[in-house]
């Protein structure tokens, strides 16, 4: 069921006054790049996903304004596949160029089918499971199951050790700055789902802003050849299976420690690729 639908037009008024005062005024007739995100409403990760998406949407809006465009995020909440599909159909009617969502497998499948039918890029947030067959225009922003499994196999660890795509304790490669921006805005650490949502919206923003003349149905082809900066120290891109190739982090507790920390950073090349 569709629980909530909100239109986010991140206007100049959302900026701190000191910045807004010295920014160039938004010009009429700017080209608008609009994307849609359908996130869980009642499910636990919903709020964290939404916060990551909103941070990236604000950054995408600022970047678009700098280069004379507008970037907008249409945000909807749905907790089961039928509601997500209904929300996504509405967003497509509103002119979105790409869709983001699919935290659970059933919603991934339903939205993937709709995206393929409407020839829209679909950026998946939820970690896919072994054996999932994504639709033609579906791209997984979360790391693939093979990489996560092999990262855990090569790292010694005890109970509670897990593999994640992001950790709020990361500092290198601009990670500290991203973690700080998120925490300053939401007063909570940037957990892995927040990073995945932030990355998905960032990818959608760069995809649309850097391919201004492309038709929506051409964007999937463009996306396959692009690279992105996820504050992980290397350029991230999609492999032929349409998983984002990226370093992952094994997190757990060292002997005698009471807090979790990053035990190892594992790059796909360290373990022979994604699958």
């Amino acid at each position, binding site marked *: 069921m569709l629980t909530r639908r909100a239109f986010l037009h991140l206007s100049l008024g959302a900026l701190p006054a000191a*910045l807004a005062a*010295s920014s160039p005024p938004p010009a009429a007739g700017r080209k608008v790049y609009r994307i849609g995100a359908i996130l869980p409403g009642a499910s636990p990760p919903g709020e964290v996903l939404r916060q990551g998406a909103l941070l990236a949407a604000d950054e995408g809006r*600022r970047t678009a304004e*700098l280069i004379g465009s507008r970037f907008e995020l249409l945000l909807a909440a749905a907790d089961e596949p039928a509601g997500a599909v209904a929300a996504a159909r509405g967003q497509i009617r509103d002119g979105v160029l790409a869709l983001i969502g699919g935290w659970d497998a059933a919603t991934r499948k339903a939205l993937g089918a709709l995206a393929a039918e409407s020839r829209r890029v679909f950026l998946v947030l939820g970690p896919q499971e072994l054996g999932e067959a994504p639709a033609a225009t579906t791209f997984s922003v979360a790391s693939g199951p093979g990489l996560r499994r092999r990262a855990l196999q090569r790292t010694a660890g005890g109970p509670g050790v897990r593999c994640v795509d992001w950790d709020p304790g990361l500092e290198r490669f601009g990670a500290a*700055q991203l973690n700080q921006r998120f925490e300053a805005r939401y007063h909570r650490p940037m957990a892995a789902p927040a990073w995945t949502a932030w990355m998905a919206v960032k990818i959608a923003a760069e995809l649309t*802003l850097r391919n201004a003349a492309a038709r929506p149905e051409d964007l999937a082809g463009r996306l396959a050849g692009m*690279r992105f*900066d996820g504050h992980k120290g290397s*350029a991230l891109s999609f492999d032929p299976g349409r998983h984002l190739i990226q370093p992952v982090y094994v997190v757990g507790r060292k002997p005698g420690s009471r807090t979790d920390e990053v035990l190892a950073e594992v790059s796909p090349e360290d373990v022979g690729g994604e699958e």
Partner: protein
Amino acid sequence: MRRLGLAAVAALVLAAPALPGEAAPLAYVSNEWAGTVTLLDTASDKVVGSFPAGGRPRGIQVSPDGRRVYVAVSDPSPIARSAVDAIVAFDPKARRVVARYEAGTDPEAFAVSRDGKKLYISNEDAGTASITRVDRGQVTASLAVGIEPEGVAISPDGRWVYVTAETSSTVSVIDTRTSQVVASFLVDLRPRAVAFSPDGKRAYVTSEIGGTIAVVDVNGHRVIDTLPLPRSKPVGVVVSPDGRRIYVANGHGNTVSVVDTAKKKVLATIPVGKRPWGIAITPDGHKVYTANGLSGDVSVIDTAKNRVTATLKTGAGAWGIAIRR
């Protein structure tokens, strides 16, 4: 949090030997973890002094008349704001710090106007560029630029200031006549530094994650070419005085790339110290110096031979380097 008042800073007099002859300029190296600035004699390639800058010194520039060395100092905690944030002015003749200027939060890199009256500063955490008037010692304008601004450079004619921004992968253009951002454009991923050609017609922007250099037509403020630098992490960049070569510090690649600007091809890749960041060239173009953060030293490159001829220990976290041009 450390506070460094003007009086205290002014008392930090160099314990260094006499200045060398005027024939060869000094090179000034900021050491971000040591909190110091090291002076090198580019004639002898020897360390001739150092002084404490306070906090975390990174960006470093020499005024056009050579009478001041400016150092961007921020709080040693990477993401903390504090009263330490400032541009410190050092008198190289008297060998002491003579002033501190407002610089906005977390100042990192900056450029000095051609008349020496203004500083254009990137404020990484605020997403702004500050303009500080030296005679007032105060920030007189704060301009919205890209997200996580870093590299700053001013065109040879003094008209344009380019400010890179790491997260938005943009370059914003400030018109120095109006102190307004008049254009912005996208470049490759995580742009770090920018340098203008001596004739002012081209600017070169390094992109660390993209592994490329963008060639910018300054007249139109637009990218006209993007040169790949294989197996590189380009950060600092400097153009030779004749405009024929670009020298790129490759950060975590631990090398310097030498690029022919006419042929747009890499002529040489020179191994240097660990994590070269800042890079500078002597006015005669004969030597290039890199500040190597992880090895805490400076590599000296003979540009005729394209090889390192000396390595000078400076301080922990060598970051920026400036030579009066």
